């Protein structure tokens, strides 16, 4: 209801001028042309839902709901969506980026670590920043970059060589560039940072290289590191005993996606990845804290308030680096501060985000590894599902029931939308020796049957029950994120290049288009000059759509 109220206010303040052919942002009071981009204050970030024309951070808002308050595109007119402009990224790598839009300026990242500032209405360029990388970089899973963060008139971006940089939002000039970790040891960075107050919070990738993961905070003004929270506690901490011997030193637990923030509780939530080596758990006995967990962190100090581990002693590479979705909703007859988490291990979790208490957990995708979850949310493993020398076939697949691509939550429908995959993998174990900068995985996996055997689906899940409300099957499969909107639409895409819109209440398809290449990014929505757009990267092109004028 809160969102309804805000949107009504917005409509009153910003009369929607569908007939406008003007090229410019318009001043809301005078209707005169207005410049693009104005300073992003903490107030604006905290109240991002009050300006749905903008998309101010990777997941849309601090609750990471990937929900747009715009409803100009809705179930009545989605069939009239048509291409407005496309922007060709120079890199051949598939794009995983979500653009950020500030008052008519769109910031889109390009593989490996470049940024382009565009006019969000026309796709025409203001400036471009090309980041230079060392040769022979060590990284796991593609030359990816997923987006920027913005505060004041500065942008913040992770780079593949494990640096954090700040750029002038108006010209792309480099303001500072700091090394977060040593790329030669297998550390890299691909995710959009998160701005909290005057800090830039950011994680690290490298879980396949025997790194020791952490979450860092940097001073937004000068890039000075303010705190570091290791995701594997050192020997001084009792939880270090959850690792046998010295295995904690190379235990992975990376933090390669973006977290969320609850300003009221002043807690930042960040998912952690797989323990290392990925598939050989024999060399790291114990629960391997805090791998495959969500951490609740005080952003002022970096202090860990609580954690919840989804997959203790993971041996299948089921990172818990999904985007933490925060939602205020009913649960058990009360209004609760919830965290909704469809995990890579194929279970959907509902947690109390104030305390980390486990409230509910149910499978949302095909799984054959656990009988279920106990009353504390700990999985009850089925014997014989561990990786083996001869191979053990288990669901979900290495890619998981879902993965890094964002789910979405609509406060209007009170449903969580996730791209789920009902796959399987034959998992193998092998001995591996840790060598700094080289892969340290202890095994691997193959898909036992032709890929067409398996399929994905957009699934709408009730936070109250964990039950499936509807599903939209996707063939052959999908690695795309999901957007929901106040127009009660759900957008996502497919691995064979389709982008589609569904009715968020029923899952019924409203529109689709073939973009010619894999949709492997999250959609977002914004408005310029009274017109709503939806943007999605497919292959290495960014496409934007609006309803026919």
């Amino acid at each position, binding site marked *: 209801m809160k969102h309804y109220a805000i949107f009504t206010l917005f409509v009153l303040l910003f009369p929607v001028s569908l007939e406008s052919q003007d090229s410019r942002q318009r001043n809301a009071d005078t209707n005169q042309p207005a410049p693009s981009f104005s300073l992003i204050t903490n107030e604006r970030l905290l109240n991002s839902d009050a300006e749905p024309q903008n998309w101010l951070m990777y997941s849309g808002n601090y609750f990471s709901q990937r929900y747009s308050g715009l409803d100009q595109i809705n179930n009545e007119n989605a069939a009239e969506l048509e291409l407005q402009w496309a922007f060709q990224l120079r890199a051949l790598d598939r794009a995983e980026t979500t653009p950020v839009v500030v008052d008519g300026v769109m910031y889109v990242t390009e593989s490996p670590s470049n940024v382009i500032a565009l006019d969000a209405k*026309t796709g025409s360029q*203001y400036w471009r920043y090309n980041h230079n990388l060392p040769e022979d970089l060590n990284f796991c899973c593609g030359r990816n970059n997923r987006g920027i963060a913005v505060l004041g008139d500065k942008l913040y971006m992770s780079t593949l060589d494990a640096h954090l940089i700040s750029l002038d939002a108006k*010209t792309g000039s480099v303001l500072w560039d700091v090394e977060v970790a040593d790329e030669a040891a297998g550390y890299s960075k691909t995710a959009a940072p998160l701005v909290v107050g005057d800090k830039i919070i950011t994680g690290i990738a490298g879980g396949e290289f025997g790194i020791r993961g952490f979450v860092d905070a940097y001073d937004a003004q000068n890039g000075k590191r303010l705190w570091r929270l290791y995701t594997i506690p050192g020997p001084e901490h009792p939880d270090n005993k959850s690792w046998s011997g010295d295995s904690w030193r190379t235990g992975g637990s990376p933090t390669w996606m973006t977290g969320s923030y609850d300003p009221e509780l002043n807690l930042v939530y960040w998912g952690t990845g797989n323990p290392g080596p990925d598939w050989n758990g024999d060399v790291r006995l114990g629960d391997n804290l805090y791998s495959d967990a969500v951490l609740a962190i005080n952003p002022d100090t970096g202090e860990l308030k609580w954690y919840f581990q989804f997959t203790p002693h993971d041996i299948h590479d089921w990172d818990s680096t999904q985007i933490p979705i925060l939602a205020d909703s009913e649960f058990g007859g009360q209004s609760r501060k919830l965290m909704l988490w469809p995990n890579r291990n194929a279970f959907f979790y509902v947690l109390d985000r104030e305390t980390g208490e486990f409230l509910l957990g149910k499978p949302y995708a095909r799984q054959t590894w656990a009988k279920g979850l106990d009353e504390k949310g700990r999985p009850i493993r089925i014997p014989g599902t561990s990786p083996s020398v001869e191979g053990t076939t288990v669901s979900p697949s290495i890619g998981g029931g879902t993965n890094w691509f964002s789910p979405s939550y609509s406060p209007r429908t009170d449903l969580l939308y996730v791209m789920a995959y009902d796959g399987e993998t034959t998992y193998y174990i092998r001995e591996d020796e840790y060598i700094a900068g080289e892969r340290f995985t202890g095994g691997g996996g193959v898909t036992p049957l032709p890929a067409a055997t398996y399929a994905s689906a957009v699934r709408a899940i009730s936070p109250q029950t964990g039950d499936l409300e509807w599903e939209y099957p996707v063939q052959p499969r999908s690695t795309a994120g999901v957007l929901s909107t106040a127009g009660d639409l759900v957008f996502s895409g497919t691995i064979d290049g389709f982008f589609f819109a569904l009715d968020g209440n029923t899952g019924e398809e409203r529109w689709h288009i073939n973009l010619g290449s894999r949709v492997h990014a999250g959609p977002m929505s914004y408005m310029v000059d009274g017109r709503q757009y939806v943007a999605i990267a497919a292959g290495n092109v960014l496409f934007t759509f609006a309803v026919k004028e």
Partner: protein
Amino acid sequence: MLRKALHAGIIGLLINGMIGSVPALSGQEQDNPYNTGQDIQSGEQLFGRNCSRCHGLEAGGGERGPNLRTGEFQHASTDAGLFAVISDGIPNTEMVGVGRNRSEQSIWQLVAYLRSLNSEVRVEVAGNPSIGEELYGGKGDCSSCHMIDAEGGRHGPDLSTIGDRRSPDELLSDLLTPNARVQQRWWTMRVVHQDGTEVEGLRMNEGTYSVRILDAEDNLWSFLKRDLRQSERTETSSMPAYGESFTSGELEDLVAYLYGLSRGIR
């Protein structure tokens, strides 16, 4: 003579042939798109790994390859020509191309490194850089338009590593005749919107249908040309010429300061 002319002709053919094989190039005018201080640094690393065995550790020449620090290249004169030689090699010589194994970016970075060596032959300058720094921030008011290490204005090129790209003579010439060499990014534009709104500022980017401007208050604007009543473009620099307001001694000091803005020195 005949021998020399023939040689030049063969080289011309060679280079032209090579350029034809680089899809992104449009003739010899292609500017190096990877020409920042960081590019030069990456180029240096690449050089050390791929080229130094023949051309010497710092490109000063080795047993098999010539000195590349002189600024004169036997088989290419432009950046595009250098790109082609590095990418494809020189037939019938020991110079093999690296193109098959390296990205275009890497090759451009090698070009940037080789170019930097010419200007990197550091020369003595007469001026006093400390006085130059005072002039930069004071009398010259340079920082209102130029950025150095994130401090300064947005209305001129970032000068953080200008000493790596411009020689003292070139810097002096830039100060005396700023209009002699103005990149399009620093042209200015004045437009009047059909409703009367007037915007003037740096022309950040312009296409067939639209133009983007950074005005004096650092506001970003984007206009469709069809919405403009009037549009004027000024292809000269907004930087003043310093020949009259500065003494020759002050110019020397300012050049000394700017020349010292180098990745290597700072």
